[in-house]
């Protein structure tokens, strides 16, 4: 379940620049090493979450291909409840630490800046659809992603430059938030506000 860092070269350079600026005069390690440390820490946090939710998933029973829709829905709800109960004290930054958030936000901002207007408009349209259907939706930790709300298409060219996630989790964008979502349980595991540039969004 090792989490692999798959950032593009350009994103890496941009990030390295910021880290370099942060470390100047502070006697810190080389930026790239620091970068690796931050992503290694992020990977450990993700792995810890996945270990926990997989234990909980075992306790609610495996997904059996012979299950009825009732049974699938019931299992998903049980798993969500178990995750929320086990993470009662979960707070923003438990997984998306401030350090990794700063790096990821830079990656995203840099990636957006390289995209032509028509692509940004398409991304904006996907967010608009979500906003139209659920205008009051503000993501919160341990919240279920609203049933029936569209899952805005995740920008395909952004995914390869973000740290890769295990199959239990996915990134999603909700307005300017990057969220970490448990797919089977439909639970928001962590949020990163202001991660996505808002100047191109509705």
């Amino acid at each position: 379940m090792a989490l692999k860092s798959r950032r593009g070269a350009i994103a890496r350079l941009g990030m390295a620049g910021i880290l370099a600026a942060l470390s100047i005069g502070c006697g810190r390690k080389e930026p790239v090493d620091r970068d690796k440390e931050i992503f290694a820490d992020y990977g450990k946090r993700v792995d810890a979450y996945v270990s926990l939710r997989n234990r909980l998933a075992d306790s609610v029973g495996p997904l059996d291909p012979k299950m009825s829709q009732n049974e699938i829905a019931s299992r998903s709800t049980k798993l969500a409840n178990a995750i929320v109960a086990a993470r009662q004290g979960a707070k923003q930054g438990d997984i998306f630490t401030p350090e990794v958030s700063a790096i990821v936000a830079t990656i995203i901002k840099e990636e957006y800046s390289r995209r032509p207007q028509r692509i940004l408009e398409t991304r904006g349209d996907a967010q608009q659809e979500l906003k139209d259907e659920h205008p009051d939706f503000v993501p919160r930790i341990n919240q279920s992603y609203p049933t029936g709300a569209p899952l805005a298409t995740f920008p395909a060219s952004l995914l390869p430059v973000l740290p890769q996630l295990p199959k239990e989790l996915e990134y999603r964008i909700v307005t300017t938030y990057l969220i970490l979502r448990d797919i089977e349980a439909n639970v928001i595991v962590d949020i990163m506000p202001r991660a996505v540039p808002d100047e191109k969004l509705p």
Partner: protein
Amino acid sequence: MKTLAPIGLAVLACTWTASLAGQTIALPNRKSSEKFVVIGDAGTGDKEQYAVAATITKVHTLFPFTFAVMLGDNLYGGERPQDFANKFELPYKALLDDKVEFNAALGNHDDPNQRYYKPFNMGGERYRTYKKGNIRFFILDSNYLDPDQVKWLEKELSASGSDWKIAYFHHPIYTTASRGPELENRKILEPLFVKYGVDVVFSGHEHIYERIWPQKGIQYFTAGGAAKLNKGDTRPGQDITEVGFATDRSFMIVEVAGDTMFFQAISGGGSTVDKGVVARHLGPDTKKVATAPAAPDTLKAVTASPAAPPRAPPVVKQKTTTVTKTPPKTITTTKQTTTKARTPPRATTAVPPKKPPPGDWGGRVAHL
């Protein structure tokens, strides 16, 4: 033009046609062929979905397709067990009872947990491949085109041999509908489709029917109108859209016989709005795509009993146009000649669309 008319008639004369309650099947309907229905954006649970489903069910009695391709947005709104019943099991009950196998892709309105819903036959996967006869299908999750999925697709495409290769997923990478194509997905997918010889791509998302001029040798269809409708949201004859229909809901039926794919787009009310044939890729570099939109009004003259024996597929004379593209690569596009002469397929680079004509595309719908 004079010489083209007999050819058009020959097309019609060679096409086995069956009709019942206003629906006409203009496909060969051979016993040994692969037959399927294509529906997109169907899961509203409203009366429009049920009306289209009723038409599909009638078509099924004439054209016994054995499986259904679902292009995503399989369930809008809630996804409680009763929603699966009201938005899928009940409208398509007759088809499910007749053992029609549904194979769903995920749309942006679909909870990815739909992949565990047995009647969607997704095998617990967001993306997968399956085979029917000589067709290899690739279902993609266009909502979340992560590197693993892309890697998987390339591996599967490279191993798929000489079968027909048909990909389908929710978001169109070519469309002139108002929300526009998913350009980021196109950048990733198109090179793979071209490299490995994908023949046909179906998408939904846009609530219209649309046939795109072949792009780099690949035939693209948008068929997202099986319940919702974005009235007038198509630009037929302009930009890259060869045929568009957005005055009623719609779905498609498809038949693959050997190296030929016959398709027919049908409105919710049972009218034929487009039909034609696509030829399978013949090699890695030379690709033949032949489309044959019917002259719909002429079809009114064709009548045949549903009990009539299957006949040979249309034998048509074809007009071949060679288009050289950049990077240098020769694509031979073979366009079936019908009663109407058409301009050859345009280059991939889209011309900015002109303002759509008022009233959409009323002149080309045939009530049969």
